């Protein structure tokens, strides 16, 4: 009997139809992938299943019983657990307490058993092969470590229905394999897993069935067996997507960015040396936690360094702040799009000009008309879907938000662009568009440093690949000479 069945769910927000008729069903012991472009309705559907939202119409049935009113409490009671991309933890509390709070019932008058909490946490973490101190505060953990805590929470809740929303986004490949093992284990137990991901490789590895959502309704549900990649992409996007990675033949020019022996104890970087040439895309691969984002942030002036030199166009320059970096023509598209990317409450135009207000502010006062023109230019060039340049960015889809963020850095006319996971969490259509833009930029002579955890992307886009491990560069290879195995082993080997 089906674990869960959603039939013709509809949901509107302030007049906008998020779901027009989404249906979905989950069998015991299956991994059912849910795919669709950003904006197709996946997160709304999930929110309804977890009780964070109530549907306007349609039915939700769990274990044969129609659910009248779903709220987080009921969802938990029914055995539904969700693991999101962004961990939702209590930074000031310990790991054990974080796990325990998720598992305890909501009754307030219970005595807290700290010993039992610690033991439970240890047990769960062991099952995941993670070595975290249960009594440590969560705010001292790195992002992947926090994700592990999230997964432990779901494990502990003994959920029958586990929803995983882009769970591998911040995990290293080793952690991803561990996750897959857990998924298999859960499956063997008869748990049903709803797996949302943009990473088609994972879907084709894990899933038993695939449901495609488009524009708020279920398009089709197919068995994974017999489904082809391009077919799936076609279903999601509704159009043929040519090569995912644009073919380029670029003659790289002079060195535009060079790092010599960059070290920072605080950031965990040791003796990092690399160079990026004009027109070249240097891919930086490595496990999460290998220091890639720290490196990017150091180049951009967000983090100080103890020793070493940064040379921009062959001149050694001190970069003490993002303003310094920008003045040198360095742009940085951050990894954490929600926190550090486009500012959601500000307009498209305001976001685009934020890093380079001087260009639209003669004598220090903002020229609104000039700003609008600038923004319109980028909206067209990057094909951003927005009603106007005055629209709040928060109302756009994820992919378009990322494009606005990218536009901000294009606006400074950079000579070096550091992209940190530029297509993470972005739907397939927008992803290829961003790749195309990267190709164009490289063709125009911009030197690009691209950090990515997606090996296919690294291999497909980069001219050269640098591999980081433990804050060091452990290897650099040309694209033609690179193989996934080699890169992975460099990233893993200790």
């Amino acid at each position: 009997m089906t674990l869960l069945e959603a039939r013709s769910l509809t949901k509107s927000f302030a007049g906008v139809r998020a779901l027009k008729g989404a249906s979905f069903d989950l069998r015991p012991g299956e991994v059912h992938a849910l795919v669709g472009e950003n904006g197709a309705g996946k997160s709304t559907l999930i929110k309804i299943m977890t009780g964070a939202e109530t549907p306007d119409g349609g039915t939700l049935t769990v274990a044969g019983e129609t659910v009248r009113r779903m709220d987080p409490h009921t969802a938990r009671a029914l055995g539904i657990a969700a693991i999101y991309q962004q961990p939702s933890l209590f930074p000031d509390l310990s790991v054990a307490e974080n796990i325990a709070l998720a598992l305890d019932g909501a009754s307030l008058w219970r005595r807290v058993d700290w010993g039992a909490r610690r033991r439970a946490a240890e047990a769960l973490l062991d099952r995941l092969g993670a070595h975290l101190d249960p009594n440590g505060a969560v705010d001292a953990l790195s992002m992947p470590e926090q994700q592990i805590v999230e997964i432990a929470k779901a494990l502990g809740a003994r959920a029958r229905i586990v929803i995983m929303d882009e769970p591998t986004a911040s995990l290293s490949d080793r952690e991803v394999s561990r996750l897959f093992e857990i998924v298999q284990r859960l499956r063997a137990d008869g748990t049903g897993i709803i797996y949302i991901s943009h990473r088609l490789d994972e879907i084709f590895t894990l899933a038993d069935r695939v449901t495609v959502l488009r524009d708020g309704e279920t398009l089709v549900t197919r068995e994974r067996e017999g489904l082809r990649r391009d077919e799936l992409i076609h279903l999601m996007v509704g159009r043929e997507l040519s090569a995912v990675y644009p073919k380029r033949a670029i003659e790289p020019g002079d060195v535009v960015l060079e790092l010599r022996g960059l070290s920072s104890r605080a950031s965990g970087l040791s003796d990092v040396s690399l160079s990026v040439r004009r027109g070249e895309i240097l891919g930086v691969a490595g496990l999460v936690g290998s220091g890639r984002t720290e490196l990017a942030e150091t180049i951009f002036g967000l983090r100080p360094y103890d020793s070493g030199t940064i040379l921009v166009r062959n001149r050694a320059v001190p970069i003490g702040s993002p303003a310094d970096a920008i003045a040198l023509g360095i742009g940085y598209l951050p990894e954490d799009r929600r926190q550090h990317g486009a500012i959601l409450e500000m307009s498209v135009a305001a976001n685009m000009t934020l890093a380079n207000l001087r260009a639209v502010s003669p004598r220090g006062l903002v020229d609104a008309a000039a700003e609008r023109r600038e923004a319109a230019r980028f909206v067209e060039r990057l094909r951003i879907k927005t009603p106007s340049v005055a629209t709040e960015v928060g109302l756009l889809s994820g992919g378009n938000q990322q494009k606005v963020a990218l536009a901000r850095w294009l606006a400074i006319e950079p000579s070096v662009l550091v992209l940190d996971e530029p297509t993470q969490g972005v739907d397939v259509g927008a992803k290829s568009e961003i790749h195309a833009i990267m190709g164009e930029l490289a063709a125009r002579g911009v030197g690009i440093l691209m950090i990515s955890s997606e090996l296919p992307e690294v291999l497909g886009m980069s001219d050269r690949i640098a591999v980081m491990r433990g804050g060091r560069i452990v290897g650099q290879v040309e694209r033609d000479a690179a193989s996934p195995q080699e890169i992975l082993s460099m990233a893993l080997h200790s």
Partner: protein
Amino acid sequence: MQALRRGEWVLLAALAGEIALFALIAEQFLTLGNFFEVMRLSVELGLLAAAMTPIIITGGIDLSIGAMLGLSAVVFGAASRDWQLPAVAAAALALAVGGAGGALNALLIARVGIPPLIVTLGSLSLFRGLAEGLTQGAVNYSGYSPRFLQLGQGYQWGVVPAQLPLFVLVFAAYVVLLHQSAIGRQLYAIGFTAAGSRYAGVPVARRVGLLYFLSGLVASLAAIVYVAHLGQARADAGAGYELDAITAVVLGGASVFGGRGSLWGTLLGLFAITVLQNGLHLAALPSELVGLLTATLLVTTIAMGASASARRDAARATAGFGVLSLEDEVSLRNTHVAVICAAIVAGALIVSGTNVWLVRSLERTGGPAASAAARPAGGPIVVAMMPKAKGDPYFVSCRAGAEEAARELGVELIWDGPTSLDAAKQNELVENWITRKVNVIAVAVENRAAISSVLRKARERGIKVLTWDADAEANARDYFVNQATAEGIANTLTDEAARLLGGKGDFAIITGALSAANQNEWIAFIRKRLAARYPDLKLATIRPSDDDRDKAFAETQTILRVNPTVKLMMAISAPAVPGSAEAVRQAGRTDVKVIGLSLPNINKPYVHGGVVQTVVLWNTRDLGYLTIHAGALLANGQLGASATTLQAGRLGNIEVRASEIILGPPLMFTKANIDNFDF
């Protein structure tokens, strides 16, 4: 930007409605003179609110801005008076202090990264504490050149208050900074997300630091205006102003979480508050209502704003489903604004309703009905009487006598004043009464220098002016109803102390508010009396009680311990006597006597218990009674400039000495007679 302006036009329309309503019910409300007086009174607060706006927009807050006003005022006063610096140099020094304080805030908030609420809470204490320390709580700087005072009390072009152009300048500068410059754009970004702004290359620390630095400077500027306006500089200047500034900013639509708000909104919010206050005063409604209504308005506005933004957030949560149109944005904002309008209208309705009720009740107490229209020549005399603080039981008992006389004479009595000691509010109220064209103004003066110019203005407009309980400058009033001379009070107290101590020993004084002028005057006379007559009687220490019973209690305890030779406590503030007595009683120190200036009722248990030997006072009820009688006589032209005596109802013949009307000798309440009194 478009939506912002539209929303504020609606708010402006609502304010117009409020003004129309007040014009109907409040005397003289809708006159140009009144409008500009309202402007004048709002300048200091307006400056602070302007500086506060960008700070709140970046998600911060500055609670220390009022305290910095006080510190700068004191520095200005010290520089002018003690160090004899010319006004410009003193102003420069005051601004330097403001900059330094602002820089301290900026350093801790922007560079060290401590949350602004806590930093400015600490610097609030620090700045106010420095002001108190520098003045030892007591000093009160006054005596500025008339040219300087013109800045705060004079007029440009005849009718525009002199400080208004300054405000307009500062406000305009802030508008350019916040709404038009690139820096302003960055400020809004910081308000939405400081971390995200950093990643966009915004120098967050520098920008935020700038705002707090500017805030310190603006507070000093406001201090200079304040001193010019009131003619005095005291350690408690600007107390509570930060909360009013925050209220204005938040009322104007700024979110305390940052990112939303505008200077125009703040201006309208400021206007809403001051118009409300002004209207209430002119409608002769009690000052407490101001606080209550402002609080209600604040909460109502934000409540509706909060629900509107919750809806906005919910809409945003559906990322990717087409997009909310601009119209939706505007309609959300209009709802917020519509509620402010509704609240203002409701408030005005309440006010007019109460006014009608008041009118009817006045009819009942005798005398022809007091209508809201201009007073016809033959109507009842209107006497506006102001205590130093409405909440002080001393003044409450004066009121009883005043009301008695008002009933007797058929006089309309307006009784209002600041809820706690506040020279600025006294001024404001007198201004409103001038606008309202009352017949007589009678003020218990909190600060001589500050009140005198506005009282002179009242006299120029044909209003009779009396002072009572504490005097202003001689040419600012027609008569001073004096219960006893300062010297007389001081001598009575000193003589009593000497008598109880047998002419020698140590005693201590517990005084009231830190810089109360009359209390300091008494202390000066006490010292003189000691020097002249009682060389063996030593004043060991003087401690303040802030008119707080508990504090007087604690101070007395400490004195008893630290100065064990003290055998008598002299408490010269009404709440301090029972506080001090309780401390003596609880300590079991039967060897220590307690005397002071206070009301009989609250001291009865101690007098009967033998803890307090003597309470000196005068019949406060009679004081109020006499004042109203004198006022009525003045208004009827029956009290000329050279009178030597007057008839005051049941008090009979009252002596008039030069321009002082003397109530009579002080009363001494002892075990023998205290039960005969009930106030």
